[in-house]
């Protein structure tokens, strides 16, 4: 648990992010953490205003689609692509979706930071 942290769900993620955008907060970055004991991911959204930091914590099952926040904060697209690449978090509707190939070659179907490969496997099945 981080100081100034608030838990969000898939339903209220976008409204909470939008609220922070409207209040003039800067999105500092995103962090993904694999929760091996819960078969889930923590996705942390870090915000800043006048050097005061606050965090949103979204805990999602591994297969769950996560709405992209890049429509609100454009800069989120790089972090979301990176997390999708490395963890296989199923981000939906990223403004520019690199399709798990931001760092990796397209033929790589594993997520190097985690054993979970839902996104890449399903993309490969789709191609087939």
């Amino acid at each position, binding site marked *: *648990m*981080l100081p100034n942290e608030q838990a969000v769900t898939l339903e209220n993620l976008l409204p909470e992010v939008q609220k922070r955008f409207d209040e*003039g907060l*800067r*999105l*500092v*970055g995103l*962090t*993904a*953490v*694999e929760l091996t004991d819960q078969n889930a991911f923590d996705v*942390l959204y*870090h915000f800043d205003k*006048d*050097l005061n*930091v606050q*965090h949103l914590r979204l805990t999602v099952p591994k297969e769950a689609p996560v709405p992209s926040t890049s429509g609100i*904060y*454009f*800069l989120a*697209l*790089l*972090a979301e692509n990176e997390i999708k690449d490395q963890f296989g978090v199923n981000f939906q509707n990223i403004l*520019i979706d690199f399709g798990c*190939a*931001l*760092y*990796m*070659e397209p033929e790589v179907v594993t997520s*190097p*930071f985690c054993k979970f490969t839902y996104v890449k496997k399903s993309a490969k099945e789709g191609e087939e």
Partner: protein
Amino acid sequence: MARTVLPFGPQHPVLPEPIHLKLVIEEEKVVEAIPNLGYVHRGLEKLVDIRDFNQMVNICERVCGICSCIHAVNYCMGTEQLLSLEVPTRANYLRVIWMELHRIHSHLLWLGLFADGFGFESLFMQFWRIREKIMDVMESTAGNRVVISVNIVGGVRRDLSAEQTKWILEELDKVEKGVRQLESTILNEYTVCKRTKGIGVLTKEQAHQLGAVGPTLRGSGWAQDVRMTGYTAYGDLDFEPVVEHDGDCYSRTKVRFREIYVACDLVRQAIAKLPAGEIAVKVKGKPDGEAWTRVEQPRGELYYYHKGNGTNHLARLRIRTPTFANIPPLLAMLPGITLADVPIVVLSIDPCISCTER
């Protein structure tokens, strides 16, 4: 008008490291830019699985050579938070001294590369000649020129003697004198102004919305510098963030240039106030819990997220580097400029790609 897609990079004369931009152009004007990363991705964050939390200091230093000390400090701050360690005050001051020396050499390196980017070779050599004095200081005080490895969890592993601090101050005077001699050239010379003023403009609103950090943010009018939060010993030192308002390449150059003076001043203050005492505390326990720490690198805000699980290995380490944050703002700077200005604008964010991809 017909559009052409032109690759910029990954290998390009102005790029010390590889990044690929797909530039959509109409005649000579850039319409859109799409980044392509992945040429130097090393997966360093994942090394927490096989390196213990003490060894990770050395890994974090290698995220970026140019600001290695600052990466190590941020990593140590996070780990020390998880271990509830109180770092000795002297160690915090020593960290400031080495961090600011890193800032000076990073900015001098960039100023040289930037001058080289628009063909001003003699200016490039002058900046790098001055930079050598800082490299000498680091080699003499820490045993290495770039990756100085002075930080450990719990403090620092090297101290500075009275003779060394005296010598550092003498060298700093020479550095500052040399930089002042180049001030009128870098800020007033016709070629520099022609290539940088009004080019690659990032408005104040764009800088904030697109998450710009460091000199890129401050060059667009935001007085935000993480050092203002007072981490390590910065809370005891006086400084004002350097801010410019035009948001163009010239503003970003001016911010970095003036930050050298600020960094010299901070080193002097830190040496003047350097308290006596221990330089490290003994590490007890294993990191457990979560920590989020950030520092101001030469290129901007750097954050580390630590998650410990009570073992020697961290469960997760996340590093978000300043260039990663400055890529979306870069994409906003490029549309509307001519192809010839693209290298200058790309260089103006001081891109560090090995940092970005880790």
